[in-house]
C-alpha cells in the first residue's frame, strides 16, 4: 500500500524552495540579525567581524543615514544629530519620556495634536520610528549581502512588556524599512526558544531579561517543543542605560558638575560611567578620570556601585514576584533561571536574582545573542522551511486592555497574561434618539483610573443606524493577534450594519503618515509601485495555488465531491493562466473566485484536522 502523504492545513511550503528568513533583535543599545545557515542558527557579522550593531544613527545634511559604529563616533562631537536609544521613544509621547526620568540629549519638537515626538536633525525632523527603520535597513542589507539573496521575511523581537503602541511603532518601522514581518516575537520567548532547543529543556523556566532600556521577566512551560508563556511582567523603561545614568549622576555629584551640563558632557559622562560599570564586572575598584573641559579624578568601588544600583535591581524583583503570582507558582517550581541581556553580566544582578529565586541563575549562554538566535529559529519555521517542525510558541498579552467608562474608570476587557490570539466582544447602546456616532477610548494597564493607564487609541464609531435611544445594539469586538497587536471592529446587531471605525492612535502613526514617509524615503521613491503590486498579487496567487494543490493531494479524495473537484480544478487552471499575465485586477478576481468556491472545503479541512487533534488520532493510525 502506498503511503499517504499527510498534510495538515496550513502546511504547504514547497519543500524544494528555501526561503531566506532572518531574526532581528532591535535593541536599545545594540541590534543583531541572525539566520539559519547550514542548519545552524547564528548571528551575522558585518565585514569587520562585528556581530553587534550599535543602535545609533547619525544624520547629516543631504547624506544617507549612518548607522552603528560609524555613527557612534559622532556621539560626542555632534550629539544633536546622533540618535541613540530610539527604542525608548517608540510608541511614547514626550510627556511619557519626561516622566520616566529619561534625559535624552536631543532637540525635541513639540507639535500640537501629534503624540509621537519628533527630533530635529540636520537631515530633517525624524521620528523614533524612522530612526529604527534606518537601523533595520542596515541589518537588512547586512543579511542580504551575507545570505546572498532577498529576505522573504523576518521575525523582529520586542520586549514582552511592550504595550500595543510600542509594538505598532516597531511594526511601522519594519514597514518603512521594506521588511516583511512574519511575526513580532517577545524577547524572553525568543531566548527560551534558543535556550530550550539547545539544551533539550523540559519543565518550567524563568527568563530574566535586562537589556539596555527594558526589563522583562517571563515564566514559561517547555513541553515537547511547545513554549507556553504562563505569565510575563516587566518595565519597558528600565535597563542598563539607567544603571549608567545612576553612576553618571553619582560622578556629577562627586565632581560638582551642575545638573544642566551640556549635551556632549552628559554623553561623555555616560561613557565614563559605562566603562566603570564594565570594569567592576571583573575588578573591585574602577578608576575614574574625567578629561577635557571638566577635570576630575576618583574611583568607584564595588560596594559603592552596589549601593547605587540596588534600588534599580529591586525594581526588577517586583515584576518577578508579580509574574510568579500570576503564573500561580512559587519559586520551588522553577527549574532554571535563564539570564538574557547585557546588563545581566553584572555580578550584583545575578546575586540578587539568585536570592529571589533561591538558586543561581544560568549564565553559560551569550546574553547578547540569544534573542536574535531564537528569532532566527522561529523565522525559519514561519517562512516554511521546516514544515514538519513541532515547535509552537504560545504567548500572552502583557498588560490588560480596558475601555474608559463613566467617571474616568477603566473597565478591563482582556486581562493581562491572557494567551493570544484572543478576542472579546462587548455590547454598547445609544443613549440619544437617532444617535449615529459614538466614541470609545481604549487604554492599556492595570490601574483603575484611565488617567493612570496608557491611552492607546480613541475609536470613533460612525454610521450607526438611526434608532430610538437604547434600542441599538452595537457589538464591538476587540481582537489581539499573535503579534500582540489590537484591532477593533463593530457591528450593529439588530440591523447587521457594520459601523465605520476611525482610529486615532494616541502615540502612533496613522496609515497615511506611513504612506507619506514611504514616499518621502528616497529608496522607495525609485521603486515602481505598479510592479510591486503585480508581484504581490502573483505571490498571493502562487500561495493560493500551492495551498490548494497540497490540500487536494492530502485529502481531496475523501473531502471533495466529484462535481466540486471539477469546479475547483477549472478555477485553479484559470488562475494559473491569468497569473502569468500582467492584469492585476484579473488576477485578484481569479483569486477571489477560487477563494469563494473553496471556502466550504477549507472549513471542512480545518474541522477534520481539529477533530483528529482532539481525538488524539492521526491519519496514519486509522
Amino acid at each position, binding site marked *: 500500500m502506498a503511503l499517504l502523504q499527510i498534510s*495538515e*492545513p*496550513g*502546511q*504547504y*511550503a514547497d519543500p524544494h524552495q528555501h526561503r531566506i528568513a532572518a531574526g532581528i533583535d532591535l535593541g536599545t543599545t545594540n541590534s543583531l540579525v541572525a539566520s539559519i545557515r547550514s542548519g545552524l542558527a547564528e548571528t551575522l557579522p558585518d565585514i569587520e567581524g562585528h556581530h553587534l550593531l550599535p543602535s545609533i544613527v547619525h544624520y547629516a545634511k543631504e547624506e544617507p543615514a549612518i548607522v552603528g559604529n560609524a555613527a557612534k563616533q559622532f556621539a560626542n562631537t555632534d550629539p544633536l544629530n546622533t540618535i541613540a536609544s530610539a527604542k525608548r521613544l517608540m510608541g511614547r509621547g514626550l510627556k511619557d519620556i519626561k516622566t520616566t526620568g529619561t534625559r535624552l540629549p536631543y532637540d525635541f519638537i513639540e507639535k500640537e495634536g501629534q503624540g509621537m515626538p519628533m527630533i530635529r536633525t540636520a537631515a530633517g525632523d525624524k521620528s523614533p520610528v524612522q530612526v529604527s527603520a534606518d537601523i533595520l535597513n542596515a541589518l537588512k542589507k547586512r543579511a542580504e549581502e551575507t545570505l546572498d539573496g532577498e529576505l522573504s*521575511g523576518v521575525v523582529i523581537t520586542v520586549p514582552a512588556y511592550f504595550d500595543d503602541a510600542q509594538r505598532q511603532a516597531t511594526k511601522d518601522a519594519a514597514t518603512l524599512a521594506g521588511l516583511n514581518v*512574519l*511575526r513580532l516575537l517577545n524577547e524572553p520567548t525568543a531566548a527560551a526558544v534558543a535556550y530550550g532547543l539547545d539544551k533539550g529543556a523540559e519543565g518550567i523556566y524563568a527568563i530574566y531579561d535586562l537589556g539596555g532600556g527594558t526589563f522583562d521577566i517571563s515564566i514559561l512551560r517547555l*513541553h*515537547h517543543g*511547545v513554549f*507556553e508563556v504562563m505569565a510575563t511582567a516587566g518595565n519597558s523603561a528600565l535597563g542598563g542605560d539607567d544603571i549608567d545614568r545612576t553612576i553618571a549622576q553619582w560622578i556629577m555629584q562627586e565632581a560638582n558638575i551642575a545638573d544642566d551640563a551640556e549635551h556632549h558632557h552628559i554623553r561623555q559622562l555616560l561613557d565614563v560611567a559605562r566603562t566603570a560599570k564594565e570594569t567592576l564586572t571583573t575588578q573591585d575598584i574602577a578608576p575614574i578620570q574625567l578629561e577635557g573641559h571638566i577635570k576630575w579624578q576618583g574611583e568607584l568601588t564595588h560596594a559603592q556601585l552596589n549601593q547605587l544600583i540596588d534600588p534599580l535591581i529591586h525594581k526588577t*524583583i*517586583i515584576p518577578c*514576584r*508579580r509574574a510568579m*503570582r500570576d503564573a500561580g507558582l512559587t519559586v520551588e517550581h522553577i527549574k532554571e533561571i535563564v539570564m538574557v541581556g547585557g546588563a545581566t553580566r553584572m555580578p550584583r544582578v545575578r546575586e540578587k536574582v539568585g536570592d529571589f529565586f533561591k538558586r543561581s541563575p544560568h549564565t553559560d549562554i551569550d546574553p547578547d545573542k540569544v534573542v536574535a538566535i531564537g528569532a532566527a529559529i*522561529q523565522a525559519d*519555521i*514561519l*517562512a*516554511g522551511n521546516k514544515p514538519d517542525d*513541532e515547535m*509552537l*510558541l*504560545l504567548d500572552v498579552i502583557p498588560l490588560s486592555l480596558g475601555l474608559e467608562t463613566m467617571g474616568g474608570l477603566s473597565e478591563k476587557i482582556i486581562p493581562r497574561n*491572557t*494567551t*493570544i*490570539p*484572543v*478576542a472579546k466582544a462587548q455590547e454598547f447602546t445609544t443613549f440619544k434618539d437617532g444617535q449615529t456616532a459614538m466614541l470609545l477610548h481604549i487604554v492599556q494597564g492595570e490601574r483603575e483610573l484611565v488617567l493612570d493607564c496608557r491611552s492607546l487609541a480613541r475609536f470613533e464609531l460612525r454610521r450607526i443606524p438611526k434608532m430610538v435611544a437604547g434600542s441599538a445594539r452595537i457589538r464591538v469586538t476587540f*481582537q489581539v*493577534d*499573535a503579534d500582540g497587536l489590537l484591532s477593533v471592529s463593530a457591528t450593529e446587531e439588530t440591523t447587521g450594519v457594520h459601523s465605520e471605525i476611525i482610529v486615532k492612535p494616541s502615540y502612533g502613526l496613522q496609515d497615511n503618515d506611513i504612506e507619506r514617509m514611504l514616499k518621502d524615503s528616497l529608496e522607495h521613491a525609485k521603486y515602481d509601485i505598479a510592479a510591486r503590486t503585480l508581484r504581490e498579487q502573483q505571490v*498571493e496567487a502562487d*500561495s*493560493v495555488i500551492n*495551498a490548494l494543490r497540497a490540500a487536494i493531494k492530502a485529502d481531496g479524495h475523501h473531502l471533495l465531491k466529484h462535481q466540486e473537484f471539477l469546479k475547483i480544478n477549472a478555477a485553479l487552471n484559470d488562475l494559473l493562466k491569468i497569473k502569468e499575465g500582467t492584469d492585476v485586477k484579473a488576477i485578484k478576481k481569479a*483569486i477571489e473566485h477560487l*477563494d469563494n468556491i473553496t*471556502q466550504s472545503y*477549507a*472549513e471542512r479541512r*480545518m474541522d477534520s*484536522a*481539529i477533530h*483528529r*487533534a*482532539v*481525538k*488524539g488520532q492521526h491519519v496514519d493510525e486509522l
Partner: protein
Amino acid sequence: MNHFEVFNLPVSFEIDTDNLAQRYRDLQHVVHPDKYVNAPDRERRLAMQKAVQVNEAFQILKNPLDRGLYILQLQGIETNDNSAMDSEFLTEQMDLREELADLREKTQPFNALSNFINRLEKNKTFLIDILSQQFAQKEYQLALESTKKFQFFKRLHEEALSLEEDFF
C-alpha cells in the same frame, strides 16, 4: 460548540487539568496562526477564529470559578444576578476587609499580610471542594451561591496581592 465540546470532553466540574492542557496543546498545533503564516488570507482568518475559540475555552475551563460559572450558564442559570447574600457571609467579608484595611496602616505588614493571603487561599481551596460536591449532586442553586462567595474571596485576594506589591 460549547467550551467542553471544543476539547471533546463531557460537561463536568471535575476536570483532569493535565489532560485538558494536553488536548489544548494538540489543538494549538492545528489552529495556531504561526501554522498559517504563508496561507491564503481567508484560511488565515479561519485559523485565527479557531485559535481564539480554543484559547477562550481553555482559559475558562482551566479556572475553577470560570468553569463553575460556565456550567451554570449552560444550565440556563443567570449568573449575573445581584440578589442578596446571607448576612452571616457578608459580616465575615466585612471583617476580613477591615482586617486588610488595618494591615494597610501597619509599617511592617509583610508577615501579617502573608498570613492573611494564605488564609484567603485556603478559603478558596475549600470553596472549590464544596463546588465539586454541589456540581456532582447537581445542586445548581447552591453552586451558584458558592460561586458568588468565590467571587468575593477572589476580589479580596486581588486587593491583598496588590497591597503586598505596594509594600514589597
